[in-house]
């Protein structure tokens, strides 16, 4: 039964940062007091944000769905306590950008009344219906990536037919320094984790289940092994708890899969491409609670550590403002200088203490200048290759840095920029203190931006070309229409004389017209012969004729007066 026989595959590189885990791992998971207000963001998972299904003013119960999954890659969110929805509006969320995002604000009524939780008859439920229930209970990966779990629990997700999922890996490596939430969970709730693992194994139909735990957590390993023996849940295949070497980033999904099985996830692929599905131990626990208890995911374990009075782990309701969580840990100590969400290797600075704990938040580290001294000035790269030796993906970070800095993004991609998992090992070991990962994040976002711009400009170009084409076509159509009409006209006029000759009425009219014209012409000639310029005064009423006569008389008079200076006509 001992897992000692399992060969461990050592991935390339990796680093050993000071783990600081003892700061928070020594005390049991603590509960939080009920808070007057919770902020539940609608976007707590990868994919489409949940769609709110409550309105401002609605009364909700703990565990009631307040946002439903929208589309395929999505999952639901639930009320963390009973109370009233007071707002659905953009609020601070734990995101590196510091931007606000839509959240449902719930004012607690202090009663904490819950909906009735319905345990799922999971062994006799249609797998698809079961997965949809899990979606509606809000399960998402609690290791930090928060991918909706119900999708990953579908054995059909393997993209390649010859690669059905054969191995389930539970990730209990917890390789990031400072964080101990998974450690405490495994120690204290190993039985539930093990049950979750077995439910997962059954749903996926895997042959073997491996729980990988770094060997700096002997208590967790012992607890899991005990739970493995104790659990009376029906087993699909065997479950094995494997101690893996403590080496950051050994808890990266692809790294852990390699360590445990020797299988490399292809670049740009998923672990399912090699028949492996990986879940965090916290997700297994959450799944167990959902399936056997019918409870939606409304709380998780969060480590609060660093420069706080009483560091430790807390069972935190999703939606708890970070400021309240820090209060529960005794508050920030003097000269605290900011908070990290997640671990120090891959986490990010929290912009706003009002932001709530979401499903993705596993740790809050309060910084102090002693614990996290300011980074020294970056010097030029000396190509020492320490970064390349530390890179778990076997990239050449110094080359990528060179071209990222030069904004030669084609070259950076040639050095496989998009295989970078941003684990931070390169920056960690750089003797020149170059923030390499920042450069890679920059290069990635620039490339994405250019890709977007290119798409937009391609679209604009296509639109423009189509417009030009349309105008040209319309012009041509118009010209054709005219040409056709002209041709028809011509054909008509060509046919017309024949008609006329046969029309006596037309001939008669023409004769009358000709006679009139001749008369007019004759009158004109007569007048010209009489030396009278034609005056447009024929056929006028007598009053007008009189007026004209008066004007003529006046004009004659004035003209005669001016005879001395002007020669009149």
């Amino acid at each position: 039964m001992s897992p000692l026989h399992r060969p461990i595959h050592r991935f390339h590189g990796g680093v050993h940062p000071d783990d600081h885990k003892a700061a928070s791992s020594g005390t049991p998971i603590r509960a939080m007091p009920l808070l007057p207000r919770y902020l539940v963001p609608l976007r707590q998972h990868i994919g489409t944000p949940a769609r709110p299904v409550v309105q401002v003013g609605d009364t909700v119960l703990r565990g009631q769905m307040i946002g439903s999954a929208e589309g395929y890659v999505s999952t639901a969110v639930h009320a963390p306590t009973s109370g009233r929805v007071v707002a659905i509006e953009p609020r601070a969320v734990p995101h590196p950008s510091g931007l606000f995002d839509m959240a449902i604000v719930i004012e607690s009524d202090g009663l904490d009344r819950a909906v009735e939780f319905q345990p799922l008859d999971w062994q006799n439920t249609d797998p698809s219906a079961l997965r949809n229930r899990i979606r509606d209970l809000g399960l998402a990966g609690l290791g930090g990536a928060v991918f909706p779990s119900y999708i990953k629990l579908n054995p059909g997700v393997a993209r390649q037919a010859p690669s059905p999922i054969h191995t389930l890996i539970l990730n209990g490596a917890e390789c990031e320094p400072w964080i101990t939430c998974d450690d405490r969970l495994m120690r204290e709730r190993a039985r539930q984790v093990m049950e979750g693992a077995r439910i997962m194994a059954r749903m996926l139909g895997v042959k073997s289940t491996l729980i990988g735990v770094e060997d700096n957590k002997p208590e967790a390993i012992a607890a899991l092994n005990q739970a493995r023996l104790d659990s009376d849940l029906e087993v699909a295949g065997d479950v094995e708890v494997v101690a893996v070497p403590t080496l950051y980033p050994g808890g990266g999904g692809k790294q852990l899969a390699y360590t445990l099985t020797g299988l490399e996830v292809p670049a740009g692929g998923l672990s399912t491409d090699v028949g492996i599905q990986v879940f965090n131990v916290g997700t297994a626990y959450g799944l167990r609670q959902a399936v056997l208890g019918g409870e939606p995911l409304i709380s998780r374990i969060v480590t609060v550590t660093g420069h706080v009075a009483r560091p430790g782990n807390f069972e935190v309701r999703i939606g708890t403002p970070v400021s309240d969580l820090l209060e529960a840990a005794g508050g920030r100590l003097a000269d605290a200088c900011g908070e990290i969400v997640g671990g120090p290797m891959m986490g990010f600075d929290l912009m706003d203490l009002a932001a709530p704990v979401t499903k993705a938040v596993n740790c809050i580290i309060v910084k102090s200048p002693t614990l996290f001294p300011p980074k020294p000035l970056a010097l030029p790269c000396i190509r020492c290759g320490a970064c390349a030796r530390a890179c778990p993906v076997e990239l050449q970070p110094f080359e990528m840095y060179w071209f990222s800095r030069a904004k030669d993004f084609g070259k950076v991609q040639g050095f496989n920029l998009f295989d970078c998992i941003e684990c931070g090992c390169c920056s960690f070991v750089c003797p020149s203190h170059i923030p390499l990962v920042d450069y890679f994040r920059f290069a990635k976002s620039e490339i994405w931006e250019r890709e977007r711009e290119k798409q937009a400009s391609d679209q604009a170009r296509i639109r423009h070309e189509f417009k030009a084409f349309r105008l040209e076509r319309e012009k041509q159509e118009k010209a054709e229409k005219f040409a056709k009409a002209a041709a028809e006209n011509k054909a008509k006029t060509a046919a017309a004389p024949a008609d006329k000759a046969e029309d006596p009425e037309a001939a008669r009219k023409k004769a009358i017209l000709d006679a009139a014209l001749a008369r007019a012409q004759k009158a004109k000639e007569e007048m010209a012969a009489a030396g009278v310029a034609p005056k447009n005064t024929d056929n006028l009423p007598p009053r007008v004729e009189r007026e004209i006569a008066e004007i003529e008389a006046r004009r004659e008079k004035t003209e005669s007066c001016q005879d001395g200076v002007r020669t009149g006509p």
Partner: protein
Amino acid sequence: MNGSPFTLLANNSVSAVMLKVMAALIPAIIAHAWFYGPGIWVSLLLCSLFGIVLESLLLLLRGMPLGPFLKDGSVLVTAWLLAFSMPTLAPWWLYLVGMLFAVVVAKQLYGGLGQNLFNPAMVGYAALIVSFPMQMTQWPGPIGLVDHTISLGEAFDLVFAGQGAVSPDAYTAATALDTLKTQLRLDKPMADILALPAFGWVGARGQEIIALMMLFGGLLLLANRVITWHIPTAFLGAIVLTAGLLYLLDPGAHASPLFHLFSGSAMLGAFFIATDPVTAASTPRGKLIYAGLAGMLVVLIRNYGSYPDGVAFSILLANVAAPFIDTYTQPRVFGHQTGNGKKP
């Protein structure tokens, strides 16, 4: 930009790396002083001083901050490596010219730390040996082999005031590599040549112990992970292979591989110069090719070139090839089928 990671490896900096390199040179310096007298102290001091002055001047001209760039210690490493490559007791201006080429031309004009294509110390050495062959080949002989042992005071006098009371003949001697070359041209049998006083147990007298100390220092660098095994192994391996092949072909005309390892600057080159990360190839396979090329050239130049030692030129030639070698030796990335040898 100020994202993760928020924590960095402790006691890790460019200056720490450079300090470790300098510390690893100390056993060899002591051996040098033991066998060749106090001249090495003077040349180390002069090269360091000239280096710092020239580096500061150029940094000022380039508008760069002096503090962090002087503190990185790279100029001192260059100075010490050049001092090790040059004869001690040479006139002071020779050190100045050498450092001028090393620091100004090879390093700062290329853009300073990390930007140079060629190893600065080797550029300085190459410029000197081409321009001042006479001064550059006047090596003090090992103590016990020469008539006069130079005191520290005399060393300063010689360097600054030129040869006064002491004639160079009293303290200089042809190096082993030099002797080997000239004697072989005179068609002397190898056994007779190796019996000459310039030769020691396996290599050059005195020099072989310094080389041993270099090896020791180099192993310290390996243990401290300042360098990886690839370059020294390939460099020394190529020397052994090439020299061994020639030795097997004609032992009468070629020195043994062991002699090549423990004479001249083979060990200095293997652990301290070819390993200069800025100018070396950087991929694991690339390092092997790069250093193998350099090691092979060392033996070829020593045997067929006009200069007695070939470490400087062979490393400079390998420097030229390093970017090209890197391009075609990119390692396989995790999850990729094959090594992405060719870069776009």
